[in-house]
């Protein structure tokens, strides 16, 4: 066999060999346990602490707001839709750093900015023409959108 071909075959064997060894060593142990992914990944995801607390969690301390909210157009909307994930706040309500977002105008626009593909019952505005220099909460009560402040 010509020497260069022999060396190339040796090199190929070495590369394939080290790949096989690397596969043995580096493949995550729980890979293919259930499917084409790490089985451990399921447990890892389950172990994360949820960032959303859910509506019931707020009831304990903010029952008044809940009551207001339920009477009005926004009754189907969860508190954290507008205030953002708040489970850290529930656990430690006095901490200023963990306070939920209060003046979240983007939240309003996520549902109210004009888009013809939305249901007609969901009232639409064109924010650029709708008093865009002021904040929504100056003229609308977020928890009671039917009322006038």
């Amino acid at each position, binding site marked *: 066999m010509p020497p260069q071909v022999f060396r190339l075959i040796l090199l190929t064997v070495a590369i394939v060999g080290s790949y096989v060894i690397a596969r043995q060593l580096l493949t995550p142990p729980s890979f293919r346990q259930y499917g084409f992914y790490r089985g451990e990944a399921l447990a890892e995801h389950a172990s994360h602490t949820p960032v959303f607390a859910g509506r019931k969690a707020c009831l304990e301390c903010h029952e008044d707001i809940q009551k207001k909210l339920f009477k009005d157009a926004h009754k189907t909307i969860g508190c954290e839709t507008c205030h953002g994930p708040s489970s850290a706040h529930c656990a430690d309500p006095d901490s200023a750093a963990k306070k939920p977002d209060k003046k979240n105008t983007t939240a309003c626009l996520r549902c109210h900015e004009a888009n013809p*593909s939305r249901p007609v019952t969901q009232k639409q505005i064109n924010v650029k023409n709708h008093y865009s*220099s002021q904040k929504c909460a*100056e003229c609308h009560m977020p928890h009671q959108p039917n009322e006038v402040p």
Partner: protein
Amino acid sequence: MALDVTNVVVEALPRFEGYVYPNESGTHPLWGFLIVLYPYITGLVAGAFIMASLVRVFRVKPLEPVYRLSLLTALAFMLCATLPLLFHLGHPERSFQIMITPHLTSPMAIFGFVYAWYLMAVLLLELWFDYREDFVVWSQKTSGIPGIIYRAFTLGVTDISEKAIALDLKLGWIISIVGIPSAFLLHGYVGFIFGSIKANPWWGNVLMPIIFILSAMVSGIALCVFNYMFLTWVRRRKLDMRCLDVMGMYLFYALVIDFTVEALDWIHRVYSAEEGFHVIEYMAKEKLFYTLSIGQVLVGTLIPLVLLGSLQIIRKYVSDAARKRIYFTCASCILVGVFAMRWNVVMGGQFFSKSLRGVMSYKLEFAGAEGWLMGLVLLSLPFIILTVMIKLFLSERLPTTGHVPHRVDDAVSEI
């Protein structure tokens, strides 16, 4: 204060026109600038390789001066071809798992195989057989780190008898022949990824792999012209005008075929005017006007087509200096135009709603993982690698053995 807050909000609003589903009106498409770079870079690899095969397989003698340069260009860009994808995916700490747990049926994952085949079995092998004799000679003459590198690259084979060299040539030629379909496969694969998405009228198209291959050839040859001219300019050498003219000729032919097939694609779209045609029309006329009509068609195709085409006829009457300028302009225009084409394909397919009745927009950012600064860094990396390679393997101080890659017949008959 209140004013600030609302204005910021208006700025951050997703922008769209027409009927766009709420979940589509996000601020960013899923595939950004880096995914535009990916087909661009792989295309340059495939094109530069085909340019080199013109010498080795099709025996175009005048192109000999750029044979090695184009192979090294292909290698330098090949080494960076996966980077845009890996940067887009994030999680560098587990990127190796792509290699360790290859998936056999996912079209996306097949790139790993196509890439490995092309790099290991084609490019590196062809380069090695071509350079083997030089490595042996250089390793005996050179000391220091370059000497060690050359010695390592000989893989310990020091036989440079005539018979061994003849075998090198023959094997290199076989690999080159295998390499041409492989280069088509490499870039046809990228076209397939887009062309097979049948739910998207901008992408789903059987011509897509072919268009990708042809535009890859165009961009690859243009890159070789660019690199060759730039390198001779840096080295203050005289350009081989014959070589440049022939490159220009092939560039012209490739461009004509590319232009014809892309035009055919458009004629087909316009005539058949399928379901999604209105949105496609709107995209071409409004959304992608600058990148499609100006970038891809005018700068990337028509201007070089006219310039190169007229040179084919009146070459004799144009002075060397003027031809040089024209070739350089055309190469740069084509490089820009093909980039615009990749942008149009990748971004264009994400700019309209699944309803086919509305369009979204995208503002390219400066910083960030998908910003254009990142893209610029990734695009200059292959040039840096190429510079190092040229210093090592195309150095003027190291005389080459001067065997000619296309004289394989003699070699074959000798064995």
